[in-house]
């Protein structure tokens, strides 16, 4: 075991109570939502494990992720989580509804549930507010609204999209987020849903395994788009967070991007340095699902190929089937990176208070 004094979890999935969401929805969307005509669903791939862990229930059989008190007692307390960032479940597909006003109303009500029921319930919780990026102006309006709540530390949208996220149609989102110093994050799951493009560039995978493995493709596309379109030139204080998109592909795609830029620089004359340098400055990456090569030293070698100390932030993905526990994650990182990855990079990004000095105890690693 690696004993961590400080732990910040950047990807916890809480369930949003449907009746509570409904209570915040204005008409006509409340009537519509109540009749069950919601957002486009997922593609329906079969995961025999279920996406939600079957053991994430209280002794009384209630979902731990469905109640902030349970989440506090059975997850935050157990792992000694100092802060946990909530990214609400089943929220990203709304952004790919072809009906922009309905989508914007639902995510807004969903954010109301987050702010009223979750952020008020436990001082360790922070939240990403969900937007519907298909209509960037409505999304910007929602950002200005939720930014008033101190517990909202990030803006969240799906990595499934109808255009790469560096496209200038999204600028109102980045403008609003920049004004409030809020990072913008993407999370997988909506690939292929609603008005998004197909989940891969070559079409539709045939299994959950194929679909899930391919999710890194949309991450690469968005990352390259954000850099080459000059999003970080236009919004120099913008931070963009890649949640649950994997780690190991990053250096290889940046080598490719940097190499191509040397010959094609004139097509993006607003970039005045290597594309990878924009990535290192503006992109943050959550750790789960960590790649697990047969030889652990191969994973450590990859961490040498980019500023892992500045970019990586621990995430558990609790209570999803493919999560990483804090201990499992901490052991995968070399000791000198551990406090950066497990808490401090996230603390800086989300401006989370440092522990008071009296409680500050240095990390103890019992296994090395």
């Amino acid at each position, binding site marked *: 075991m690696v004993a961590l004094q400080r732990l910040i979890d950047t990807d916890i999935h809480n369930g949003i109570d449907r009746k509570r969401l409904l209570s915040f929805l204005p008409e006509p969307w409340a009537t519509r939502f109540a009749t069950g005509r919601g957002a486009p669903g997922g593609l329906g791939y079969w995961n025999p494990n279920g996406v939600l862990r079957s053991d994430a229930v209280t002794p009384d059989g209630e979902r731990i992720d469905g109640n902030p008190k349970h989440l506090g007692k059975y997850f935050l307390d157990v792992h000694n989580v100092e802060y946990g960032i909530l990214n609400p479940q089943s929220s990203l597909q709304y952004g790919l509804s072809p009906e922009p006003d309905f989508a914007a109303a639902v995510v807004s009500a969903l954010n109301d549930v987050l702010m009223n029921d979750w952020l008020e319930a436990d001082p360790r919780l922070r939240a990403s507010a969900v937007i519907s990026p298909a209509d960037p102006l409505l999304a910007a309006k929602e950002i200005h609204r939720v930014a008033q709540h101190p517990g909202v530390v990030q803006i969240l949208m799906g990595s499934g999209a109808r255009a790469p996220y560096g496209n200038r149609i999204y600028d109102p989102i980045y403008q609003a987020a920049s004004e409030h110093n809020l990072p913008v994050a993407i999370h997988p799951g909506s690939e292929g849903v609603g008005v998004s493009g197909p989940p891969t560039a070559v079409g539709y995978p045939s299994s959950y395994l194929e679909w899930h493995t391919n999710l890194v493709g949309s991450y690469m596309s968005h990352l390259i788009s954000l850099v080459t379109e*000059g999003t970080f*030139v*236009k919004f120099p204080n913008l931070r963009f967070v890649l949640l649950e998109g994997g780690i190991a592909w990053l250096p290889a795609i940046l080598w490719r991007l940097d190499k191509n830029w*040397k*010959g094609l620089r*004139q097509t993006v*004359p607003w970039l005045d340095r290597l594309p990878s340098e924009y990535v290192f400055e503006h992109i943050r990456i959550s750790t789960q699902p960590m790649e697990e090569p047969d030889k652990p030293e191969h994973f450590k070698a990859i961490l040498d190929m980019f500023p892992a100390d500045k970019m990586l932030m621990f995430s558990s993905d609790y209570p999803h089937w493919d999560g990483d526990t804090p201990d499992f994650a901490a052991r995968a990182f070399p000791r000198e990176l551990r406090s950066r990855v497990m808490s401090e990079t996230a603390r800086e990004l989300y401006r989370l208070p440092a522990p008071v000095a009296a409680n500050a105890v240095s990390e103890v690693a019992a296994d090395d």
Partner: protein
Amino acid sequence: MTDTGTRTKREPQLWPVAKVDELAPGERKLVEIKKHSIGLFNVNGEYIAALNMCPHELAPICRGRVSGTTLPSKPGEFIWGREGEILACPWHGWEFDLLTGQMLADQRVRIRRYPVTVQGDDIYITV
């Protein structure tokens, strides 16, 4: 232009490579001097000589496109300029500033250039 016979260290020499009326602005000529392939360019009236070898993969860079390029700009904005001053390698498109020898994407990378002098009607390269 006789070889001094000193094999250890040779002084640079002037090599006549073209007549001034041979190269109009925008034109170039490839010459061979002491087994080096060298490109002579008329860059808007100024003569520039460069080794015909890209520092990247040793391509014959002097056979590449000479043109302008896009100048630094805001995202979404394209400003064309420096017409005739930019040499792009035919293999991977690396752009070099003929006036300084520097690569536009990374100023630490350069093509090798040689002094050019004009005496009367003759253009000389010092190699």
